[in-house]
């Protein structure tokens, strides 16, 4: 039963690989799927694969957690207090549409070419979706829950902790999922410009140092697979009993 569920998806992937293979056969530069698999194996053997994956994931983790730590409290204040919303929302809406990529020159200027630059860019990329989702989640908390809690003498920070935050959590998690997706996009882009490690660097380096397009595509495939894995983790969060009520079973 269960394997059958994945059959259509696997079928589409097989078709794409087949088309790719046919196209690549006549080309001297564009690698075949087999060449890409060999390239991945080569990277794994050298140990550079894990090194690059680790470097990228490390930056995402720090930038992402930092953004959550700031965006969830700020979004909560904005969602709960109209004055906070009025004061902060314009700034958020002005900064939000600026692509994190556009910040790269400034990031290099401020933070140099170490880990700090991409971490800062990931922080930016993640911060806005999470702020916006948290503010709207908190704003939309249904009044009857707040009233019931007050009726049982629960007020102040306890009210936030026990009612407002859990009531807004489904929205917050949706924002976190969007944010993590963007973070993964951005880390690769940042590493292509500013850094000399990570999966983005792997791709750029492979092209510059001898047009190794098998390594280029290998990097792309690994980025895709890890992104898929990250999203699967977030979807796991969405299926927790504590938040499932909001998504309709």
């Amino acid at each position, binding site marked *: 039963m269960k394997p059958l569920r994945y059959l259509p998806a696997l079928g589409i992937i097989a078709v794409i690989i087949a088309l790719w293979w046919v196209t690549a056969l006549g080309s001297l530069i564009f690698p075949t799927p087999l060449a890409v698999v060999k390239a991945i194996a080569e990277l794994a053997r050298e140990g550079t694969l894990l090194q690059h994956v680790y470097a990228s994931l490390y930056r995402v983790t720090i930038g992402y957690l930092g953004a959550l730590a700031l965006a969830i409290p700020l979004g909560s204040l904005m969602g709960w207090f109209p004055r906070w919303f009025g004061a902060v929302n314009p700034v958020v809406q002005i900064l939000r549409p600026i692509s994190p990529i556009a910040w790269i020159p400034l990031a290099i200027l401020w933070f140099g070419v170490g880990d700090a630059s991409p971490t800062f860019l990931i922080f930016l990329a993640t911060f806005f979706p999470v702020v916006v989702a948290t503010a709207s989640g908190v704003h939309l908390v249904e009044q*009857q*829950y707040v*009233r*019931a*809690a*007050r*009726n*049982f*003498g*629960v007020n102040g920070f306890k009210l936030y902790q*026990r*009612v407002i935050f*859990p*009531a807004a*959590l489904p929205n917050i998690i949706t924002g976190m999922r969007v944010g993590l997706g963007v973070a993964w996009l951005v880390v690769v882009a940042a590493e292509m410009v500013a850094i000399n490690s990570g999966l983005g660097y792997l791709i750029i380096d492979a092209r510059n140092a001898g047009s190794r397009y098998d390594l280029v595509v290998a990097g792309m495939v690994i980025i895709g697979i890890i992104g898929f894995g990250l999203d699967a983790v977030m979807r796991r969060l969405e299926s927790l*009993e*504590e*938040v*499932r*009520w*909001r998504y309709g*079973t």
Partner: protein
Amino acid sequence: MAPDAKITVRNVSKTFRTGRGGVQALEGIDFQVGEGEFVALVGPSGCGKSTLLNMLAGFDRPDTGEALVDGRPVLAPSRKGVLITQRGSVFPWMNVQRNLGFGVNGMPEAEQESLTRHYIELVGLQGFEQAFPHELSGGMLQRVEVARALMAKPDVLYMDEPFAALDALTRLRMREELIRILERERHTCILVTHDVEEALHLADRILVISTRPGRIQRTVEVDVPHPRRLSSIRLVALREMVLSELGVTQGEDRTARPAVAGTGVQKLTAGWASDN
């Protein structure tokens, strides 16, 4: 009535501001409720009866007059008077057991556990302790609501159309359940409803409230012991009395019992007709 009544409402008025000026919701409301008494406020939609309940539960303040519980004005909501509404406020992110425990947070764990067991049993939800609200039916959710309220040991239970969102059969069953529960654990209760039958089924006394501005139009003592049969002669007579007070009479009764005209009641959603 005794001067030491549980609840005293004295000359309460309330006006709400709207875009087109003020709407007077309540005017000169006076009544008292004794300890352990069950009083129903019956009236058409928009007569301000929910506002009255909100004031007693501490969610709203009267413009004039006073709403006293134990002789003191209610300045903020508290566990002393728990309000149950039709919208339901069982927290969907907590299972049944944790919902019940919400109202008594800070209690020693062992005590809380035995209390939870007691109230789960009282409302007949054994086996659903770990269930999440989205897995429960509307009737079961209202049981959780009632159990959670009672577990906080309130002095007064306020109910604002608690069963209005349920289907007719479940609503009837919940009324029976509520009577059974209150027989085991007596509470002072105030019920707001536009369902005359529900009021007659549950209450010791019914206050009929007129439409805007809401005034107490008549007090009806329901001097019928439980268990009540709604088809009994006495209750049928009381029902007609309340209904005619609200300006509604049923066709076949018109010759036998002329309508009381000029009560200012334009609209009524009566309980036994298809509700809502």
